[in-house]
């Protein structure tokens, strides 16, 4: 095993372990404070992962384990970004729920909020556990390689793998990535109104209540 293999495998196992720990943070019923801490943990993980991706991206083509590490860390950072997006919206829903008494939400709106929080927590837990398991499997493959493991790479990782000078391939946003998409924004807003409009609103009418929830169901 080369030094690169050892180092990439070690960092992947560390990340897998930390992702598994972060998954334990949001146990229902989660208070906004708990969610805020979990959110911060996930963001810190994403930043650390991106730093590792950048570090291994400096490796030369003669260091295949390090090049693979760059791809895997970029892929993991993108996945953590998706988890963070869900957590951000879950945190906001939890804060609304905490504020439910003051905001005079009706039962339907409360149910919607609780569902968002519950689904967000579950989605976060599953996402982090799955990432942790994937990273463990990849770390084993990296330390046993070659052959090097193949990772379902998002656009961000592809950009790392293919220097623009050699492959000026078009780069499309990865699934779920936050890009300006007017169509998606419109669809999302419509969904918001469906979830949060008070029962008395006539079909198609804008909500009369100010309690429009600025988030979507995960």
């Amino acid at each position, binding site marked *: 095993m080369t030094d690169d293999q050892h180092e990439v495998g070690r960092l992947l196992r560390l990340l897998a372990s930390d992702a598994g720990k972060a998954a334990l943070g949001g146990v229902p019923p989660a*208070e906004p404070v708990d969610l805020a801490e979990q959110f911060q943990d996930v963001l810190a993980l994403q930043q650390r992962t991106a730093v590792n991706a950048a570090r291994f991206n400096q490796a030369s083509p003669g260091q295949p384990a390090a090049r693979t590490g760059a791809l895997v860390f970029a892929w993991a950072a993108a996945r953590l970004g998706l988890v963070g997006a869900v957590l951000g919206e879950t945190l906001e829903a939890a804060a609304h729920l905490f504020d439910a008494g003051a905001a005079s939400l009706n039962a339907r709106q409360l149910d919607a909020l609780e569902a968002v929080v519950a689904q967000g927590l579950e989605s976060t837990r599953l996402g982090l556990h799955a990432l942790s398991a994937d990273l463990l499997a990849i770390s084993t493959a990296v330390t046993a390689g070659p052959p090097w493991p193949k990772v379902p790479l998002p656009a961000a990782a592809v950009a790392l793998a293919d220097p623009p000078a050699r492959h000026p391939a078009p780069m499309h946003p990865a699934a779920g990535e936050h890009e300006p998409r007017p169509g998606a924004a419109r669809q999302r807003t419509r969904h918001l109104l469906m979830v949060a409009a008070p029962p008395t609103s006539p079909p198609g009418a804008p909500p009369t209540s*100010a309690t429009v929830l600025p988030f979507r169901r995960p």
Partner: protein
Amino acid sequence: MRDLTTVAGMLRLLGRVAAAPPGPGQLAPAPAAVSERMAQALAFERQCTEHAGQHRKPNGANPALARAYSAAAVRAATITRHLGVAFDLSVKCAMTERGAPRSAAESLHQRRHKAALAALAEAEMEADRGHQEILGFATAIAAGPAEPPPSRPVAEPAARGRR
């Protein structure tokens, strides 16, 4: 209600910090800078939630203050969400290499930067709305208990079309 005025001021400050311009030569703030701003927003959110909880306890019950702190916590949570979006984009910007001028890769890079800045601007606008809302609470509470509680626009839908 000096406390609430301070809370309102902190919200506005949070927004100003969130939308602070990037360093020289940068299109958008670095991930570490956005992460720092998010940590501040989360800390503020946590404090407001704790204060709201304290004012809901039977021995220290003050429903009006509890409502005000809850409202501030919700605003901080929304600001955090916007900052989370900006953070994710800034991480991706930092990870990917720039492409040739007018290439698809460069176009994506530019769009990410613009989207990150738009998310930061959303955070600032949310902070401004929160500032006004908390000042409204302070005014209503100072006017006395006969005043009806201020209306609670829980959260206006963010102008997502801009992102």
